[in-house]
């Protein structure tokens, strides 16, 4: 290792890349990290999640984030888009562009990425139920801009299982939805080698109230379920597994979080090798994105959230994350304002460039407490896997389906959420500014981002213009093919979706066509 000045402490003491014995970072089972020298050769991607208003509004925020030193884009869609409804649908009233950006047609997608070289940037899209449709739109926009799909780099969340368990943004019943996930995996495996087709997400499970161990266990179980589904669809595990990626929450209990991240890598490596027969080491390496815990942010004294976010981000970095979103301090009050989003990005930059923590790989490895916590997280996760295997007669995929259908996951998560709430209520847990140290709240000082009704009106006009200009006959033909291909369980729907979005079919129209074949899903309302 060269004696590069970056790898000296602030006081000038030279430091090695790694300290301690045992399997090194970059070696199986990757507990200490997936790369030998981690952030020394490449910092994590500072990927800030953004989306609000119309495509033009969010495009401006994207340009701002890239100018401020962000290194990847991440798109938040509004509730109607997430639920596969158009902006002029009855369900969309009051929700267009409010909690994310409104996307109805490929024209909106083109405006969203205007002026951004899709061959050069990596893009994450947080979308699940309609994920294959939005991927088709992204591919179509890139092609219209001269970028071949094989050059596209990014991540589609496309993790439908956790929707039934936690986030609840599902459209169709679980089984056909998992088939759509595998259709995307098949498509990107064949045609988009730089694309991550699924981001297996614990984030939302945790936000819904789970414990750290439940987040770890449910997420990895969902990952195993997708591996079983994709291999059942005819793919070889080493053909797609290197492109599976993960997304975890980084919450407040610092060492518990670090232990969780380390355990995740070890469990995934062992299961992929021993259970699913993967031999390509890239299949064994769990790569993950981290977001700080939105649910931990307080509406009271919101400035204090900057400190919470910094500590959570540090846990993600010390846990070896590949990319990171830091929450804005005002998120318990409204969508992030531009100033708050910039402070959140600056927080990552302070960690990366000022604290020195990126100079040494897995600096907490070897700590008796951290190693014990890593083992404990793994042990608790293995208990859950055993339970799901029982439920599924040896299949994790079937076990996960059974847990969804019976409401087991949702019940476990709700129990944990209520337990926490009771502890806070009883004063057994201190939440600074909420149940202790409550002086100093100044609601007058807040400048919140507001999305007005004009966004909704404008988006409806844009949609009406696209409907007016397109060839309705072509739209009907392509939608008929979507339905026909969906009805054939072994046909990949992606080509039909590409044709439909190119013909300017809307998200809602495509979802309706799929719903006609797959039906809808209503969960058992259990509290």
């Amino acid at each position: 290792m060269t004696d590069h000045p970056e790898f000296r402490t602030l006081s000038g003491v030279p430091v090695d890349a790694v300290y301690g014995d045992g399997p090194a970072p970059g070696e199986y089972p990757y507990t200490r990290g997936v790369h030998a020298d981690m952030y020394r050769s490449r910092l994590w991607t500072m990927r800030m999640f953004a989306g609000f208003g119309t495509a033009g509004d969010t495009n401006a925020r994207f340009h701002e984030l890239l100018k401020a030193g962000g290194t990847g884009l991440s798109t938040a869609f509004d509730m109607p888009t997430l639920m596969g409804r158009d902006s002029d649908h009855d369900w969309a009233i009051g929700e267009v562009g409010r909690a994310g950006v409104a996307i109805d047609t490929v024209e909106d997608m083109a405006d969203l990425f205007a002026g951004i070289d899709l061959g050069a940037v990596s893009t994450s899209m947080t979308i699940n139920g309609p994920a294959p449709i939005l991927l088709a739109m992204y591919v179509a926009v890139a092609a219209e801009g001269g970028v071949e799909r094989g050059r596209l780099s990014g991540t589609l969340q496309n993790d439908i299982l956790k929707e039934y368990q936690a986030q609840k943004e599902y459209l169709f019943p679980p089984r056909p939805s998992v088939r759509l996930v595998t259709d995307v995996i098949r498509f990107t495996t064949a045609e988009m080698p730089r694309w991550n087709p699924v981001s297996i997400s614990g984030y939302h499970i945790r936000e819904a109230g789970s414990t750290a161990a439940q987040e770890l266990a449910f997420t990895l179980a969902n990952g195993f379920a997708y591996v079983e589904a994709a291999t059942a669809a005819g793919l070889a595990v080493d053909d797609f597994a290197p492109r599976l990626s993960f997304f975890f929450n980084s919450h407040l209990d610092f060492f518990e979080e670090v232990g969780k991240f380390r355990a995740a890598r070890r469990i995934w490596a062992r299961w992929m090798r021993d259970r699913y027969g993967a031999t390509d080491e890239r299949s064994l390496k769990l790569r993950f994105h981290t977001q700080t815990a939105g649910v931990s942010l307080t509406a009271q004294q919101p400035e204090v959230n900057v400190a919470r976010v910094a500590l959570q981000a540090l846990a993600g970095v010390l846990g070896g994350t590949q990319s990171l979103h830091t929450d804005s301090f005002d998120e318990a009050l409204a969508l992030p304002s531009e100033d708050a989003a910039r402070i959140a990005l600056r927080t990552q930059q302070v960690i990366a460039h000022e604290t020195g923590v990126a100079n040494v790989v897995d600096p907490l490895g070897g700590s008796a407490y951290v190693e014990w916590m890593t083992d404990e997280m793994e042990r608790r996760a293995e208990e859950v896997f055993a339970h799901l295997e029982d439920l599924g007669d040896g299949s994790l995929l079937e076990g996960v389906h059974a847990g969804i259908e019976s409401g087991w996951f949702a019940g476990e998560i709700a129990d944990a959420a209520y337990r926490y709430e009771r502890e806070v209520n009883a004063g057994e847990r201190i939440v600074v500014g909420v149940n202790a140290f409550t002086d100093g709240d100044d609601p007058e000082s807040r400048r919140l981002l507001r999305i007005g009704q004009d966004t909704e009106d404008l988006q409806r006009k844009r949609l009406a213009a696209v409907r007016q200009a397109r060839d309705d006959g072509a739209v009907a033909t392509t939608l008929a093919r979507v339905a026909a291909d969906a009805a054939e369980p072994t046909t990949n729907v992606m080509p039909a979706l590409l044709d439909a979005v190119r013909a300017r079919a809307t998200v809602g129209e495509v979802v309706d066509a799929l719903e006609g074949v797959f039906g809808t899903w209503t969960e058992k309302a259990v509290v």
Partner: protein
Amino acid sequence: MGPQATADHGQPVRVVLAKLGLDGHDRGLKVVARMLRDAGMEVVYLGLRQTTETIIDAVEQEDADVVGISMLNAGHLTLGPRMVEALADAGLDVPVVIGGIVPDEDRPAMAAAGVAGVLGPGASADEVVACVHAACGP
């Protein structure tokens, strides 16, 4: 059961809880359901993706005293008043309490629209129960 768990008809307060609209964040509403239940109230939990019509049906069938709706998607200024109007149009004198992310500056507008109470992030069980009780009237 504490004294504040009963409504003026002498029966336990009966609360219909629902997510109005597309927003699927149901952690808060489920926690509130258990808080109210622990306080001796009767909770009719409708769950996700409810409309003003489905909520009104439940209010009529269950003879509810209060409607609690939850939203974390900034739709409260549209959907809150809409719920109040829909209940009035149906001839139901049932107060509406909203929980979720509602900026303080929106509270006067919510009150003016007839929303009986707003519960923000971090509300304690006591605050939740008191708010529902206050919405039911003296």
